[in-house]
C-alpha cells in the first residue's frame, strides 16, 4: 500500500488546469532573472510577506560557488571577489563558474542524484553524464539517450544504464522514469486508481508501463525490445483490463506489434530467452516500432511536453533554491499546484523555446534577486514560509558537496593559489582528482531528505575517526593546519582559517574566542590550531549552503 497522497485539494471542486494561456505570461524575450523576480515579488507583495534583504558579497560568492561548482570557493577566489570593484562582478562570476570545468562535474553529480539515486558511483553512467554536462547537451537529447540510446555508441550505451539497471523490476522502471523525467510519482496508481489524486488512474500507471514492458536485457547487457507485448492488469474490482500505450496527458499512441504466427512467435520468444541467459546466443534483430522511442516522442511533443519541461525546470529551481515551485518535486498534478504557477509555466516555455538549455536556466536563476536573498532571519516576527522564496534557506550540503568542500578547506590554501593551476586544463585535472578523493568521504554522509536531520554518527565520525585526525587535520605542510602553524601571529592565522573555511573575515567576537582558546593552550600551539580548525570544519557554516 502507498502513502495516501496530497489531501490539500479536497476543497477544490474545480481543478486548476496545468497550462495557462501563453498570452497571460510575461513576454518571452524578457531576461529570466527579471521574470523570476517579477513573479516572486508579486506574490510576497500581494500577501504582504516580509522578505529578507540581499545577502553580502562573501555569502553570495560562497552560495554561487557551491551551486555552480559544487564546492566552497578557494581563498584566492574569495579574495578576488570581495576585492573586485567591477559593477558587473556577479555576472562575471556566474559566467566564469558556468564555463569552468567545475560546473560540468557538479552538474553531473546533481543529475546523478535525480537519475540513479539508489546506485551512486555507477562508473558507466557517470561517464555519460560528465560527457553530456561538458558539452551542455540538450536535456531532451539526454532523455532520448537514456531511454533509447544506441548500443554501438560509447556514450549512449552508457546512458542506457538508466534502463539497464532497473529492468529486473518493470514497476520500478516505470515509476523511476515517471519521477525523474515527468515529476510524477505514479506508484500510488499501481494497485488502484489513485485514492486522492484525481489525475492518476491505473490506466496511467499501466499506460506508461506499456512503453517499457517490451524491454529486455541480454546476457551481454544490451538493452533491446521485443516487437510485441501488451500489459494487462486487474482492477480492484477484479476486472482484467488491457492497458493502452497512453502517456500521462491521456494521449494514446499507436505502437505496432509484429504480426507473427504462433510458431514464429514461439521461436522468437525462445531466441530472446536464450539471449537473456547465454553469453554467446545470437541477438534477435530489432524489428518494428520501438515502444520506448514512442514514449520519448509523445513526451516531447508540442501539447504533451509540459510534464517533461516543467519537471526539469522545477528540479533545477529546487537545486538552486532548496525547494521546488511544485513541492515535493515528484508531485506534479492538479491537486498540488505550484506556488508560482505562471513562473513555472514561463520557465518551462523558455526551456522549450531555447533548446532545453539547462545552463541558460541555471544562469537566469543565479542572477535573480530572489536567489541572492539573505538566509539570516533575526527579526522577532515569524520568518516567511518557504514557498514564498523570500528568505534563502540554509540547505544541507549534499554528501558530495560536503566531501569536496572539506577537501578544499583542509588543504594548504596556497596550493589552490598557484597560477599554473588556474589554466582550465590543469584545473580540470585537479578537479578530477578531487572528485576521486571525495568518493570515500562522501560515502560517510547521508543525502539530504525532506526535514533532514543530521545523525549523531556524523558527529561521532568527526569527533573520533582517525581519518579526520590524520588526514584532514594533519599538520604537515600540505594541509591547512600545517600552513597555520607556520604563521606566527595568532590573528593572522585566525583570519586565514576563516577565509579558507568560511570564505570571510572573522567577527571580533569570533576572533577573541579563538585567541582565548589559543592562549589557554599556548603550551602546544600546533595542537590548539588543530582543534580550532576542527571547530570550524565541523561548524554549521561549512555544513550548510546559506
Amino acid at each position, binding site marked *: *500500500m*502507498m*502513502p*495516501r*497522497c*496530497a*489531501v490539500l485539494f479536497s476543497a477544490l471542486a474545480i481543478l486548476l488546469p496545468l497550462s495557462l494561456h501563453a498570452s497571460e505570461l510575461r513576454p518571452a524575450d524578457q531576461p529570466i532573472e527579471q521574470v523570476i523576480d517579477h513573479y516572486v515579488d508579486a506574490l510576497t507583495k500581494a500577501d504582504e510577506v516580509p522578505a529578507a534583504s540581499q545577502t553580502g558579497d562573501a555569502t553570495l560568492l560562497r552560495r554561487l560557488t557551491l551551486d555552480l561548482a559544487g564546492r566552497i570557493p578557494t581563498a584566492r577566489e574569495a579574495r578576488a571577489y570581495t576585492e573586485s570593484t567591477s559593477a558587473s562582478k556577479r555576472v562575471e562570476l556566474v559566467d566564469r563558474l558556468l564555463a569552468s570545468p567545475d560546473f560540468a562535474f557538479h552538474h553531473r553529480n546533481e543529475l546523478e542524484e535525480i537519475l540513479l539515486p539508489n546506485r551512486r558511483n555507477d562508473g558507466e553512467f557517470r561517464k555519460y553524464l560528465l560527457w553530456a554536462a561538458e558539452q551542455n547537451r540538450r536535456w531532451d537529447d539526454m532523455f532520448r539517450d537514456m531511454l533509447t540510446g544506441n548500443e554501438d555508441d560509447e556514450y549512449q550505451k552508457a546512458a542506457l544504464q538508466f534502463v539497464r539497471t532497473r529492468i529486473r*523490476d518493470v514497476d520500478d522502471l*516505470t*515509476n*523511476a522514469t515517471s*519521477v525523474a523525467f515527468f515529476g510524477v*510519482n505514479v*506508484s500510488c496508481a499501481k494497485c488502484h486508481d489513485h485514492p486522492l489524486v484525481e489525475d492518476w488512474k491505473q490506466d496511467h500507471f499501466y499506460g506508461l508501463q506499456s512503453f517499457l514492458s517490451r524491454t529486455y536485457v541480454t546476457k551481454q547487457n544490451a538493452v533491446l525490445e521485443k516487437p510485441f507485448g501488451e500489459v494487462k492488469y486487474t482492477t480492484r474490482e477484479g476486472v482484467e483490463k488491457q492497458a493502452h500505450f497512453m502517456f500521462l496527458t491521456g494521449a494514446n499512441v499507436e505502437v505496432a506489434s509484429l504480426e507473427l504466427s504462433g510458431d514464429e512467435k514461439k521461436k522468437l520468444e525462445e531466441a530472446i530467452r536464450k539471449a537473456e541467459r547465454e553469453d554467446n546466443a545470437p541477438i534477435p534483430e530489432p524489428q518494428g516500432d520501438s515502444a520506448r522511442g514512442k514514449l520519448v516522442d509523445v513526451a516531447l511533443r508540442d501539447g504533451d511536453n509540459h510534464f517533461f519541461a516543467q519537471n526539469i525546470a522545477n528540479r533545477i529551481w529546487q537545486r538552486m533554491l532548496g525547494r521546488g515551485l511544485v*513541492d*515535493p518535486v515528484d508531485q506534479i498534478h492538479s491537486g498540488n499546484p505550484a506556488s508560482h504557477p505562471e513562473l513555472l509555466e514561463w520557465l518551462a516555455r523558455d526551456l522549450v523555446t531555447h533548446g532545453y538549455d539547462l545552463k541558460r536556466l541555471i544562469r537566469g536563476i543565479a542572477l535573480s534577486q530572489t536567489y541572492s536573498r539573505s*538566509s*539570516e*532571519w533575526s527579526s522577532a516576527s515569524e*520568518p516567511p514560509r518557504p514557498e514564498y522564496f523570500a528568505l534563502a*534557506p*540554509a540547505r544541507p550540503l549534499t554528501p558530495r558537496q560536503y566531501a569536496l568542500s572539506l577537501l578544499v578547506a583542509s588543504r594548504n590554501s596556497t596550493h589552490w593559489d598557484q597560477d599554473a593551476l588556474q589554466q582550465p586544463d590543469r584545473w580540470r585535472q585537479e578537479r578530477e582528482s578531487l572528485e576521486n578523493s571525495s568518493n570515500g568521504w562522501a560515502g560517510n554522509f*547521508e543525502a539530504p*531528505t*525532506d*526535514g*533532514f*536531520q*543530521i*545523525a*549523531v*554518527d*556524523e*558527529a*561521532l*565520525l568527526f*569527533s*573520533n*575517526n*582517525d581519518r579526520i*585526525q*590524520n588526514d584532514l587535520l594533519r599538520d604537515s605542510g600540505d594541509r591547512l593546519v600545517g600552513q597555520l602553524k607556520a604563521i606566527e601571529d595568532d590573528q593572522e592565522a585566525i583570519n586565514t582559517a576563516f577565509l579558507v573555511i568560511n570564505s570571510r573575515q572573522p567577527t571580533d567576537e*569570533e576572533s577573541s*574566542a*579563538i585567541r*582565548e*582558546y589559543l*592562549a*589557554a*593552550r599556548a603550551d*602546544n600551539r600546533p*595542537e590548539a590550531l588543530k*582543534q*580550532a580548525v576542527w*571547530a*570550524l570544519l565541523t*561548524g*554549521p*557554516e561549512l555544513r550548510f549552503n*546559506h
Partner: protein
Amino acid sequence: MTRPGSYFSGSNDHGLSRRGFLGATAAGAATFAADTRLDGFKSEALAAELRKQNKNVILLWLAGGASQFETFDPKPGRPTGGPYRAIPTNATGVHISELLPRIAARMQHTAIIRSLYTKVTDHGGGATLMETGRRPAPGFSYPDIGAVVARELGRIDSQVPDYVSMYTSTEGRRKGTSGFLGARYSPMFLAENMVPENIRRLETISDIDHRDRAALRDVLAKRFNQTHQSSTVASQTTAYHRVRGIMASEKLFDIEQEPEAMRQKYGPLQFGQQCLIARRLIEAGVPFVKVARAWWDSHGQNFETHRELCADLDQAMSALLDDLAERGLLENTLVITLGEFGRTPNINASLGRDHFANAWSCSLSGCGIRGGVAYGRTDEDGHNVADGPVKAGDLFATILSALGIDPESEYYLGSRPLPLADFGSKAVKEVLA
C-alpha cells in the same frame, strides 16, 4: 605525548582558565538546547508522556528463517512434524518444541503467534516486509520497526544511542533502514567488534582537548544557529552535543562489567553475550536494540541445525527474560522473537526445510503482552493457517499497541499522511495485556 610541564600534568593556572572557557560555553549550549525541537509531526504532549514511561524493545532476529515446527508450533507424529517432541509449558494447554525447555518454563511472560501469513519467501523481500510491516513501494523508503520505535520513544537529546543493531555472523547482516525518517534514526551498528565505530576517543587527542574543541565549536556555531532557525540546522549541533554521552555509553558494551555468574546465565556464545549487552543498553535507556542470530536457513540438515541454534536461543532468551524480570524491566520491555519467514512443512531430500511464509510463528514477551497465550492456529500438518491469519502489518500494529503507540497515528511525507502501521492493519488484541 605527556611530558612534564605540559598541560597534561596540569598547572593549576592553566586548568582554571580552561574551565572558565568551558563554563561560558555550557550556558550557551543550554540556551540553544531549549530551542531544539524535533518537529511538529505529532502531539507533543502525547509524545512526551510516552517517553516518560521509558519503554523499550529488544528484537531477537532469527536471520535466515527459523522453523516453526522446531520452535513454537510443533506437529509431533505428523508426516511434517520431524523427530522432535512437543512439551507442555507452564501455560495450560500450550505446547512448544522440546528444543526450547527453558522458554517453556517461562511462558507466563510470552505470547506466541502461530498464524503469520506473509507470503514473501525470499530472504531480502521477507526481511524487508517483516522489518517495515509493509511491502516496498517504488519511490518510497519506509522506516523499519527499530527506526519507528526510536522515533516514537527516543528523546532528541538522549545521551545514549536510540537504535542499536548487532550482527556479526556473515549471513545475518542487514543494515535496517530509517527510510524517510532520515539518518537521525538510523541504527548504530556493531558489525566487526562488540563496540560501535567511532565511539572511542583516539589516543592522539587528550580528553580535555576533545572536550574543549567541542565547546569552541559551540561558541563559533552560536550566531549561525541563532540566525538560521530550522530543525535541520539545529540537528547538527544536537548531534555534536550527544557525542560525549554516546561515548560515555561505551561501557554499556563491555560485558566484563557484569558478574561472572550473570555472564554464564547468558551463555558463552556471542548471541548470548549480545543479549546481555542488549539488556545493559535497555537499562540505560536505549529504546530499541536488535540482536541478530544467524543462520537458520536450514535447506539441508534442518534438525541438526535447529538442535544447535534452538539450544542457544533457549538459553539466551530465557536468561534475558529472567534478568529483565528480576530488574523490574520486563513490564516496560518488549522482547520480540522473529525472522523473515518460517520453514516448509515438507521435509526435502536433504532433510531440510525450505522457505515458507504461509503459516508460521513468532513470539512476543513482556511489555504490554498477555503471557501464556498462543494465538492463531495452523492446520494439522502446518500447511495453512486454520484460524486467525496475521499479516506483517497486523504484527507491526500489535507491536506498536503493546508499546502504547497508536498504530493509526500518522507520519507526513510532505503533505501525504502515512499511518505507522500499514493501511488496514489490525492489532491482535488477544495477545495484548
